[in-house]
């Protein structure tokens, strides 16, 4: 089948494509309501198949945070902190969702600037959800789906990204500070990067970055912020001399299975349609996750003598993280290569690199998401192909487009820069005003008892 979507610019995330062809090009400065009216006339009809897929994808991405990530992380801490990890993930589902509806979506996708969004344009979902204008019911639409659905799908990313960071300061951060940090981080790190990459007027989109589903926006941003958290907060009491093995690897394994399933929504959903791009993203995602398992386990088996399920799980996440930016731009075969490399590299990052520098990134957020995300954005520039993105221009380095590598490099650096700088600033301010860590006694007793007044398991 010849790809229908030839008008999508090469290397452009598809959902921006809709904007580009719809709102941005035809009526860039129109106020939202009339833009929506305009859409009602000129836009393609709402497509039930696409709506169906995007509803499912949104649900799947929510499932990634809880139970997915909650179990993945929850299993890795010590028993006395299981509740605290579950609570961080679960409470962020509540908190970040409401923030997203209030100003997050607006600050990410609103406005005309290349660098930041608008707090007011879509404040409290203005112009996003059904409303009545001039007595007419208006249901804003984006591409073939209602805008509210696009907003919701994006909102699920806004939840999971700060939740990923929680792995870095697990077992020692104050819950109240964590909440405020997440809101501020979401607003001042996530939203700007999201705007750069996916908003119609974002400067990285303008530069034709390949970041299909969030290599920069989600994985590099959270991974490098996590590293800063680990460094600023300091080590857990007893690290690294005291043994801190995962208290429930079966949770970690279940969680990874759910993350994997949810990732299909994350990546294939990022096509915003149930089309061939979604299919390619799905297949590439699956095979990259699979190859990530093989990559990590192989290296671990050779170096440590035994293949472990934690390695298999971590390898899967590494592979899945790595393919994220590339899933809509590379073939599934390239996905296998990328996943395998990511699995192997993340093993090295979580063992050699961490040991060398001695920081306590409790659950290896940097070693997995930071490294895999960076690798993924980089390799998307290498393996990107017009067979997948459509169009007639060459896409990645292997197709001869060396310039793409520059764009990818700039995107990586810019994402790291803002993540590191703003995270550092936020942590310093919060430390001074409300402190970051619980007391040493509370850390020893465990956060479940001291921060939440609950116990994870009462088995007798």
């Amino acid at each position, binding site marked *: 089948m010849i790809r229908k979507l030839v008008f999508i610019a090469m290397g452009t995330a598809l959902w921006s494509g809709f904007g580009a062809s719809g709102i941005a090009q035809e009526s860039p400065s129109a106020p939202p309501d009339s833009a929506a009216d305009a859409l009602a006339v000129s836009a393609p009809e709402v497509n039930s198949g696409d709506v169906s897929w995007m509803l499912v994808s949104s649900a799947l991405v929510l499932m990634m945070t809880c139970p997915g990530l909650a179990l993945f992380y929850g299993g890795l801490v010590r028993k006395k902190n299981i509740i605290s990890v579950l609570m961080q993930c679960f409470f962020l589902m509540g908190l970040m969702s409401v923030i997203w509806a209030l100003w997050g979506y607006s600050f990410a996708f609103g406005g005309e600037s290349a660098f930041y969004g608008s707090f007011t344009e879509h404040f409290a979902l203005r112009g996003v959800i059904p409303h009545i204008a001039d007595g007419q019911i208006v249901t804003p639409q984006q591409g073939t789906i209602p805008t509210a659905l696009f907003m919701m799908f994006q909102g699920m990313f806004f939840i999971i990204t700060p939740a990923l960071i929680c792995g870095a300061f697990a077992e020692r951060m104050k819950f109240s500070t964590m909440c405020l940090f997440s809101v501020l981080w979401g607003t001042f790190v996530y939203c700007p990067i999201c705007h750069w990459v996916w908003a119609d007027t974002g400067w990285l989109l303008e530069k034709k970055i390949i970041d299909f589903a969030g290599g920069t926006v989600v994985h590099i941003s959270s991974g490098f912020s996590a590293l800063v958290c680990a460094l600023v907060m300091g080590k857990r009491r007893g690290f*690294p001399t005291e*043994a801190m*093995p*995962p208290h429930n690897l079966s949770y970690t394994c279940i969680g990874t299975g759910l993350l994997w399933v949810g990732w299909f929504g994350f990546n294939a959903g990022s096509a915003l349609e149930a089309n061939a791009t979604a299919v390619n993203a799905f297949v590439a995602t699956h095979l990259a996750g699979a190859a990530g398992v093989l990559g990590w386990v192989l290296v*671990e088996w050779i*170096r*440590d003598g*035994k293949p*472990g399920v*934690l*390695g298999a799980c*971590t390898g899967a996440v590494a592979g899945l993280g790595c393919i994220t930016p590339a899933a809509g731009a590379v073939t599934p075969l390239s996905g296998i290569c990328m996943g395998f490399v990511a699995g192997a590299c993340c*093993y090295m990052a*979580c*063992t*050699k690199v961490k*040991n060398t520098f001695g920081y306590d990134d409790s659950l*290896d957020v940097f*070693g997995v998401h930071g490294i895999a995300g960076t690798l993924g954005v980089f390799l998307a520039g290498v393996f990107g192909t017009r067979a997948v993105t459509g169009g007639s221009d060459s896409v990645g380095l292997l197709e001869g487009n060396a310039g793409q590598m520059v764009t990818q490099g700039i995107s990586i650096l810019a994402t790291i820069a803002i993540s590191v700088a703003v995270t550092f600033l936020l942590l310093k301010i919060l430390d001074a005003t409300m402190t970051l860590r619980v007391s040493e006694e509370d850390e020893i007793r465990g956060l479940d008892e001291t921060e939440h007044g609950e116990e994870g398991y009462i088995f007798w």
Partner: protein
Amino acid sequence: MKKVEAIVRHFKLEDVKSAITEVGIHGMTVTEVRGFGRQKGHKETYRGAEYIVDFMPKVKMEIVVGDADLDKLVEAIVRSARTGQVGDGKIFITNVDQVVRIRTGEQNDEAL
């Protein structure tokens, strides 16, 4: 009366129980414990971080018996719990001053 505490391997519990009941003793209390001793532990590796697990899972059986039954009990345990490998466990024997059966208030040998 004597209390016999036997630390034995997990998978020997049923065998030892049978051996004990065969010699006519019908009460015991069992606890899950971890033992540290000559038996080599094993290594666990989580994302490259190695932990030596040198506390081995064992079960502790506590059996209070009248003095007359002591020897055959110890003999039964040793026989049934032995594999011959390091880590088979120990038996500790201590003196018990008094025994009470809660249900009836019976005391000492009658309470066993």
